[in-house]
């Protein structure tokens, strides 16, 4: 039968940072629960605790009334709980069958029982409606197929509670519809499904109940049918949306600060042209894999083989490295804060001044003036920390992001590109960052925002370019900006 799961005052700390502040709610068996919350609300962490990938720092998780602690994902699986990750957990070189049975291979005496495994795999694939040869290496499958393999893997493990983390992030609308049909079928067979997403139209379509988390705290639990999308959005954000953004200031008509023509990045972007004017906030929307990040990585010289014309403030420039780009007044902040944005093991000060160290070298580095710069940045960007000497990794996500933005602004760029500037950031910091972005534009800089959060593109941008499969699909100005419009262009169903 289905599993009844109860969270009681579940707490999770990552080092000094508390990401879950005592969350309590029940997951009703045999229903589809939408788990809502903005980036950094703690949805994924809570589900990882449920599925044995993380252990709670406090509180109790009960399954069918029995307090349970899963030491590993295997232990959770044994109890019938399976989490399907946003980035899949498939060994790309192994076949579909090998992946489905990974870690619990069937044996005949000492040898693997290949034929039985193949038969059972085929059966599981049929159940999820996927027709591929089970001997295909998973690396050769399309994204949607990989996802179905993940679900087949869960089905073959007799999952009674299935957690899906942003399952549609890379799917086309048709694939999404098919996935929803499968989810409904699984539910009708008695499987409980937890559906994590911040696409509210999908939540409305597929879920029976919703739970909203905000900044690591439980906000509410209710029936999906009783809430409008607007209400859900307000609950996630914790305040009226209009309060999140400053008054929009029109961009100037001055000649463009950044002008890109026929820019291509092999395998990712094809013949992209756009302008950014002083004071303008230009958004880039698109699905995961649409080539937005790669386009800008190509622009600053990080991807070889890129071609096209780039002009900054009217002068043609050749940007062969981020160093060239910074020297010409173009700064890029990566979406991958820990991997590419900040040195989490270094001090705040070292991070802040890294892009503009020349200013502090005379010729030996002057620690005191760097310290003054940090004190200034902490004040200017509202970075909240009691101690200026801690490792950058000990800051909360929002404060790390503010530091990262302060860092890329150090060289005094004329054009700033911010890739997913509010990923993994709490609501308060989000609002601060939105106001900061609008201030940067008001100062006359050109600002580019790459974002998957439609709400922020709509609230911030003067214009939004929608990319699909590496090409510009549409350019929408502020009056045309709606979620439906953006999604339609991003998925190619306009």
């Amino acid at each position, binding site marked *: 039968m289905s599993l009844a799961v109860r969270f009681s005052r579940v707490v999770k700390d990552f080092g000094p940072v508390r990401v879950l502040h005592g969350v309590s*709610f029940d997951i009703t068996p045999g229903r589809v629960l939408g788990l809502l919350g903005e980036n950094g609300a703690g949805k994924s962490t809570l589900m990882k605790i449920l599925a044995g990938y993380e252990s709670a720092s406090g509180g109790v998780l009960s399954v069918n009334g029995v307090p349970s602690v899963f030491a590993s994902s295997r232990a959770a699986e044994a109890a019938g709980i399976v989490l399907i990750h946003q980035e899949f957990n498939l060994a790309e070189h192994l076949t579909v069958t090998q992946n489905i049975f990974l870690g619990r291979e069937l044996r005949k005496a000492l040898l693997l029982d290949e034929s039985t495994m193949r038969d059972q795999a085929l059966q599981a694939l049929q159940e999820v409606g996927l027709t591929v040869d089970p001997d295909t290496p998973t690396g050769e499958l399309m994204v949607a197929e990989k996802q179905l393999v993940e679900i087949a893997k869960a089905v073959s493990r007799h999952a009674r509670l299935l957690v899906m983390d942003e399952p549609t992030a890379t799917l086309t609308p048709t694939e999404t519809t098919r996935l929803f049909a499968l989810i409904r079928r699984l539910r009708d067979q008695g499987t409980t499904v937890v559906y994590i997403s911040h696409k509210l139209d999908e939540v409305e379509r597929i879920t029976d109940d919703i739970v909203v988390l905000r900044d690591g705290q439980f*906000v509410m639990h*209710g029936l999906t049918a009783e809430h409008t999308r607007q209400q859900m959005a307000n609950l996630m954000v914790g305040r009226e949306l209009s309060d999140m953004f400053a008054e929009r200031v029109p961009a100037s008509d001055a000649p463009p600060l950044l002008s890109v023509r026929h820019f291509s990045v092999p395998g990712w972007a094809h013949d992209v042209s756009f302008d950014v004017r002083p004071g303008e906030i230009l958004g880039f929307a698109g699905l995961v894999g649409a080539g937005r990040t790669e386009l800008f990585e190509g622009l600053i010289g*990080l991807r070889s083989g890129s071609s096209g014309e780039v002009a900054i403030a009217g002068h043609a420039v050749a940007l062969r490295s981020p160093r060239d780009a910074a020297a010409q007044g173009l700064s890029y902040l990566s979406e991958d804060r820990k991997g590419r944005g900040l*040195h989490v093991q270094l001090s705040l000060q*070292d991070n802040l001044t*890294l892009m503009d160290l020349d200013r502090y070298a005379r*010729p030996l580095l002057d620690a005191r003036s760097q310290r003054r710069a940090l004190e200034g940045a902490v004040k200017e960007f509202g970075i909240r920390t009691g101690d200026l000497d*801690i490792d950058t990794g000990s800051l909360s996500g929002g404060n790390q992001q503010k530091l990262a933005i302060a860092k890329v602004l150090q060289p005094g760029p004329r054009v700033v590109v911010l890739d997913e500037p509010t990923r993994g950031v709490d609501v308060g910091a989000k609002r601060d960052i939105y106001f900061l972005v609008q201030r940067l534009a008001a100062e006359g800089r050109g600002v580019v925002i790459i974002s998957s959060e439609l709400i922020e593109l709509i609230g911030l941008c003067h214009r939004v370019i929608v990319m699909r499969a590496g090409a510009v699909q549409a350019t929408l100005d502020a009056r045309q900006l709606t979620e439906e419009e953006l999604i339609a262009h991003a998925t190619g169903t306009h």
Partner: protein
Amino acid sequence: MPPAPTEAPAPPGQAVNADAKADAARRLRRQRRLRELGPVIGLVVLCLAGTWLNPDFATWDNAMNVLTRTAFIGIISVGMCFVIISGGIDLSVGSMAALIAGSMILVMNWVAPYVGSPLRAVLVGMVVALVLGAAFGIAHGVLIAKGRIEPFIVTLGTLGVFRAYLTYFANGGAITLDNTIADVYGPVYYASWLGVPIPIWVFAGVALLGGVLLNRTRYGRYVQAIGSNEQVARYAAVAVDRTKILTYMLLGMCVGVATVLYVPRLGSASPTTGLLWELEAIAAVIVGGTALKGGQGRILGTVIGAILLSVISNILNLTSIISVYLNAAVQGFVIIVVAFLQRGRR
């Protein structure tokens, strides 16, 4: 907005959270201080033990003797410290020292008649040593940074290449410095200034320069940034390739300097010259509290690590508890134990 069927629990006390934060920060700082003090405590304990085991240990002469012998490895360790902080490694330093020593001697012997005086020949030899060291280092750096080959593989390869060429030049035997040149060159190793042997002065100078370079210059900051996370450094407009090449070049030059001090000691180079120096240099850096995964490290720690290792071998020499032949084994054990103590959680 409709009323929510279930109510949110009251948020936990902020004070508790702040306390936990402060605690964690304090714990982290204590851990770091322990890591910095570890090598010093180790050295003090060893010195006490040495004094207790043999009264000759705690004499000025023995101290100078230990430090002079430390100088070669110590100077190389300073360069190695930069390479390891940058996230790299150089296994070839022992072979490189041997090849530089051999080449240097051959050049000095050959050039002496042309330049007129043995002194000039020695100066030429010194320049050759430094240039060769720099050139080998640049070659490593280019292969690693531009060629995108693992530093482990590149320097494992040159470890073999360098020593094989020395053996080839020496015809399997030894390359020996002419006596007239050796007489002029000898003081570089044997002479003292203010009662302290020259190699110790040079070691101190290199260490001081290294400390300033690492902590007080842009280059030093870039080395740490690259070792901590190369991608972040690249995205932050750091010239990653250039910095890496420079780092291997500096290590090569350190090997050159060490060789310049080493050659007058024996006046010859053979296939066993500089054997296992890579082990000692890497051990000194690790024992000194620098993490092998890069990102952070300390020159002073490295210097103490190098001294600590030669104190161990000195004690083995002065006492008969463990055979001198097991010196490298002891060093090997020390590096493993220290790495074990340093390992991060999980």
